[in-house]
């Protein structure tokens, strides 16, 4: 309840459809910290993971995805998304059993793809506003609503009730390893945003907000709503 009222008190969006980022100064400092952390730890580990054979990284990533499913089922139920909760339940049961504890993904093979969700989305479904943009230490881009959601997801993770012993023992480590594997896999894209862009803070903020709103089925901000290609003056460019 405390978190709900905190979310209700989220910073209101500025008029005119601009980006809601009143904490930009602090956010930029956190961004610089996150970048140095990436350079020192995550990126080098990602390079190692990128060299590892897919036979090794694949099962680790599958295991990590699978232990996240009970939380997604709970959020699906809280959102009234029966279909999503059902798909994720079937995925968890199939992959935990036939998929050898979650190391393999037979559910994906029959079209039962993960219906990704979290408590941030639950808050959105319940009508909480997005709030201000936040860059969290270690975790990266977020919003006030999504940061509150992260805390609830950590506190309420039902894996502790339904997980197998290996899932309880190795779940957290596998999730950490999956972050490293993804960093290695999308090395070019991540490096492009973090190190090759003129303003990596703006690029990551923009990419996060656009992608998050797309995932939640929310409207893109007015400034991003689309460029009218017929309104462009092309003289000289052709």
């Amino acid at each position, binding site marked *: 309840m405390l978190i709900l009222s905190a979310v209700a008190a989220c910073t209101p969006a500025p008029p005119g459809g601009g980006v809601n980022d009143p904490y930009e100064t602090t956010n930029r400092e956190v961004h610089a910290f996150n970048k140095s952390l990436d350079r020192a730890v995550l990126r080098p580990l990602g390079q190692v993971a990128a060299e590892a054979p*897919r036979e090794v*990284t*694949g099962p680790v*990533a*599958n295991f990590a995805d699978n232990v996240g499913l009970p939380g997604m089922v709970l959020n699906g139920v809280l959102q009234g998304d029966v279909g999503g909760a059902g798909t994720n339940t079937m995925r968890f049961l199939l992959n935990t059993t036939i998929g050898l504890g979650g190391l393999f*993904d037979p559910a*994906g093979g029959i079209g039962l*793809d*993960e219906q*990704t969700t979290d408590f941030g989305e639950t808050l959105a479904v319940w009508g909480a506003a997005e709030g201000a943009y936040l860059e969290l230490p270690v975790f990266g881009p977020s919003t006030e609503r999504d940061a509150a959601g992260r805390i609830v997801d950590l506190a309420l993770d039902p894996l502790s009730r339904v997980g197998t012993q290996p899932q309880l023992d190795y779940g957290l480590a596998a999730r950490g390893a999956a972050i490293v594997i993804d960093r290695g*896999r*999308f*090395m*070019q*894209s991540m490096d*492009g945003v973090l190190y*090759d*862009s*003129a*303003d990596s803070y*703006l*690029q990551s903020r*923009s*990419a996060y907000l*656009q*992608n*998050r*709103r*797309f*995932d939640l089925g929310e409207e*893109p901000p007015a*400034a*991003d709503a*689309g*460029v*009218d*290609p*017929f309104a*462009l*003056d*092309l*003289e*000289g*460019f*052709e």
Partner: protein
Amino acid sequence: MMPLTRRQLAAFGLAAAWAATFPLPALAVTEAQARQLVDRAVADINAIISSGGSEDQMIRQFEGVFDDYAHSAAIAASALGVAGRSASNAQRSAFADAFGTYLANKYGRRFREFAGGEIKVQRTVPVNNYMEVQTVADLPGQAPFRVDFHVYDRPGRPVFFNLIVEGVNMLVSERQEIGAMLDQRGGDLDQLIADLRAMG
């Protein structure tokens, strides 16, 4: 209500005449054309990815795909945004050229991450005055994700002018990026053009 002055009437008349001469662009590109364009572009991209060439070779080939299938003039004009208004035609042309090389490099590198994957066209929906071709990229060991191509025929043939990956809009990102690069160079467009060339 104030009656219209003769000047205003003349302005309206001119506007009407203008509108009659240059009708608003109709939705000329058909769903089938838009879909065909994306099918061909995707086939070419998949072929490049699976060719196993060196990174430099692949990026040069991607540049060819951009030339064939994308409206590079519109993408460049959109990226330069308001800064383009005060630019000379020579600067605009030089920028479009340098920007095309930069873009092929940047996205060419990223497309390599699609290796072993497949892009499947799902459906085509008309949006305002263009077509949105919705596709799903299927990468091994990864939940499928959405890639949309925005297609029109402004240059007289079907081309795509925007690419949206899981909601992240290429035109929006590039306008922001080019804006930040210009700011760093104190608004010096010629310096930006030279630096973009060097990045390519």
